[in-house]
C-alpha cells in the first residue's frame, strides 16, 4: 500500500531546452499535470488486467475443486474407511518442550519418522494439528507406540514414549 503512495505522486522534471534556448527561461513541468493522463492509461490497463484476473480466478477455483476431487479419490482408493487409521499430533506443552521428531510404530513396525522444522513447530504451538500417519490396518487389536524427541527446559535433550492399545473396528479410526 505504501509503495502505491510513493509511485502515484512521484515527481519528475521534464526540461524543455528548446524553450530555454529560444527564450532563456526555465520551464519545469511537474508530473502532477501529467498524472491524469497516466491515470487514464492505468484505467485502460486495469480493465485488461481485470478481464484476465477474472479468468484466472475462475481457473484457480476450478483447479481447487479438482484438487479436492483428487484428494477425495486418493483417500477412498488408498485408505478406504473400513481399514483407515489416522494418527494426529498436537502440542500443549507451552514453551517447556520443543518437539524435534516423532517416531511412530504400529505393532512393533516403524510406520513413520517425522522431523519438525521451526516453522512446523510454531504452527503446532499455535494450535495446529499434524496428521502424522495415514495408513491401513485390519480390524482387531493393535499396539501403537509413539516416541517423542526434543529439547526440554534448559536445552536438555528429552525423549519420551507412549503406548496405546487400540481395537480397530470397521470404521475409520483417528488417534
Amino acid at each position, binding site marked *: 500500500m505504501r509503495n502505491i503512495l510513493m509511485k502515484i505522486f512521484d*515527481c519528475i522534471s521534464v*526540461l524543455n531546452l528548446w524553450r530555454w534556448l529560444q527564450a532563456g527561461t526555465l520551464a*519545469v513541468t511537474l508530473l502532477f499535470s501529467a498524472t491524469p493522463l497516466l491515470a487514464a492509461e492505468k484505467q485502460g490497463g486495469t480493465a485488461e*488486467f481485470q478481464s*484476465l484476473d477474472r479468468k484466472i*480466478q475462475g481457473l484457480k477455483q476450478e483447479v481447487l475443486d479438482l484438487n479436492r476431487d483428487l*484428494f477425495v479419490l486418493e483417500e477412498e482408493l488408498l485408505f478406504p474407511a473400513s481399514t483407515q487409521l489416522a494418527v*494426529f499430533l498436537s502440542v500443549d506443552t507451552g514453551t517447556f518442550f520443543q518437539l524435534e521428531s516423532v517416531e511412530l510404530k504400529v505393532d512393533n513396525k516403524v510406520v513413520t519418522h517425522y522431523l519438525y522444522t521451526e516453522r512446523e513447530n510454531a*504452527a503446532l504451538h499455535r494450535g495446529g494439528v499434524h496428521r502424522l500417519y495415514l495408513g491401513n490396518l485390519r480390524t482387531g487389536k493393535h499396539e501403537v507406540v509413539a516416541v517423542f524427541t526434543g529439547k526440554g527446559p534448559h536445552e536438555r535433550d528429552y525423549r519420551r514414549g507412549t503406548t496405546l492399545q487400540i481395537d480397530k473396528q470397521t470404521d475409520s479410526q483417528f488417534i
Partner: protein
Amino acid sequence: MMARCPESLRRVVAAFLLVLLAVPALAVPPPKPRDVRDPHYGEVLYFFYQQNYFSALAHLMTAQHFGQFPHHTDEAELLRGGMLLSYGVHLEAGRIFERLIESGAAPGVRDRAWFYLAKIRYQRGYHDEAQDALSRIGGVLPGDLESERRLLHAFLLMRREQYREAATLLEGIKGQTDWLRYGRYNLGVALVRAGETERGMALLQQIGQEPVAVEEFKALRDKANVALGYIFLQAGRPEEARVALERVRLDGLMSNKALLGMGWVYSAQEKQERALVYWDELRKRPIQDAAVLESLLASPYALGKLGAWRRSLEEYETAIAVYNRELAQLDSSIAAIRAGRLATSLLHDDGVEEMGWTWQLEQLPDSPETRYLSQFLASHEFQEALKNYRDLSFLSGRLEQWVSDVASYQDMLATRRQGFRERLPAVLSSKRVQDQGRIAQERDRYTQMLGKIDWENDAEALANEKDQTQLARLERIRRLMSRNPVEDENWQRYRLLRGLLRWDIETDYPARLWEVKKSLQDLDRALADTETRRTVLVRAQLDTPASLDAFEGRIRALIPRIRVYQERARELGRLQAEYLAELAVAELNAQRDRLVTYLTQARFAVAQIYDQSSSQAPEAKEP
C-alpha cells in the same frame, strides 16, 4: 449489541480474526492456541499457520466433503473464504464473506472484513468494488485501521479527481500514526491539484522538515522536499526551491532528482558554475535514471550560457552518443521483452512452492529485459499481474504433477483388480475356509455333549487325563477283585481310593465345566468372526468389481479435465505474459520517447552552436 455471545458465534468471531491474520500488514499479535475439537480442522490450521494456503485449502475442502468438521462448520467456511482471499480468488472470498457476515458476525468483525476486502480489491485494481466494500463499513475501525481506511478512501477519491473531498477525508486522520504521515503527504498533493497550492505546500513543508528515524519515512520526507522544490521552481521561486532541495539526502532514492533540481535552481539564478557542480555530480551516477540523462543536456546548456561553446559542443556530442547508445539498449530490451522472456526472467530464481497474494518480487535479476524497469516493476499494476503469472506457473506445475499421480492411481487400481481376481477366489476356496463348516459341526457336537454332561452332572466326563488313568486303573482293580466277592481289606481299600478319586473329580467339576463352556464360547466368537470375514470377502467378490469400475470411471474422467485446465493455464499464462510485456514495453517506450526528445534537443543545440560559430561569434573565456 449482544450481552453474551453464544458459543457458535464466538467460534465464528475467532475464525474471522484468524482469517484476517491471513492478510498481511496487520499489526495484530498472534492468537493463543485454539480450542480444536476436530483433528482434521486442526490439520487445516497446521498448514494455514505456515501460510501454505493451497495445501490448507485442499485439506479443508476434502475434509468438508467427508464431513470431518462437525464442531467447526462455520469457522471452516470462513477460513475457506480467508484463504481464497490469500490465494487471490477474492471474488469468491467476497461472496463467502457476504453470506457469513450478514448471517451473524459482530459489527466490529464485519467492518474489518469489509475493510480488508476493500484493500485487496483496490490493490488488484477493482476500484468500484473496493468503494462498494468501503461503503459497507458501518462504524469506526479500531486503531490504525481507521486511518488506513480514510487513506484508502482518499486514494479512491483522488482516482476520480475528487481532490477536495479527498482533502477533507485526510484532514480527519488524527493521532500519531504512520498513516498520518502518508495522509498528510497525499493531502498536500491533493490540495495542490485542487488549486489550493499554498495550503498544500505548507503541508509538504511540514513533512519535509520532520525529524524521522525510519528509512521509509526518510524517503517520504525526501519525496516531499523534491515535490516542494519543483513546485517552487515552476512558480519561479528558486531560492525557496533551493532550501527545500538541500534537505534531500544525497544517498536516497530521490537524490538524483534533487541534484538535477539544485542545478536548475542555480541556473535560474544565473549561477551556472554552481549549477555545473550539481550536474557534474549527477553525471557520474547510473545512466538509466531520467535525471542523469537530463543532466547530460543541462551541463552543456550551462556551459553555453557561460560562453564556453567548444566544451558545450563537446558535451552535447557526448550526450548525443550516450542517448544513441541508450536508445539502442532500450530497443534491445524492448526486443527481449517482446520475445517473451520478461516473466520467465523475473521468476527464474523463484521456487514457486506456494502461491498467493502475500508474495512479492524482492530481487530483480540483472538481464536485458529488466535493466530499465527497476522503478516500474515496483508498481502495483505490474506486481499484481506478475503474481497472477506466478500463480499460473504454480498451477501448471501442479496439473503436470497430477497427470502422473492419476497414472499411479490407474496402476494401483489395476493391481487391486488383479489381486481380487487372483487372490480372493484362492482364499475363498482354500481348505481353511472350506473347513469352517466341519468345525461348526464339531462345535455343535461338543455343545450337545457338554449339555448332556451338564444335565446329568457327569463329573467324570470332564475328568482330566490323570484322573482318567486313575479311574481306568481302579476299574481294572475292581474287575480283578470281582472274582473274589468276599468283603475283605482290599475291597475296603478299593472303595476308599475310589471315593477319594471321586471326591477330587467332583470338586474340580464346576471349574472344569466353566472352562469348557468358556472355550466353546471363544470358539463361537472365532467362528462368528470367521464367518463375518468370509461374508465380507464373498460380498467383496460381488461388489468390488463394480466399485473398482466406479473408481476407474472417476480416474478416467479426471484426465480430460486436467488436460482442459492445463490448456487454459497455458493460454492464460501466455496472455498474462503478453500483458506484462505490454506494460513493460509501454514503460520503455515512454522512456524511449523521452530519450528521443533529449536527442532532438541535443542535435538542435549542436546545430545552433555551429550556426553561431559560422557567424563568427567572439571566443569566450573557458570557466
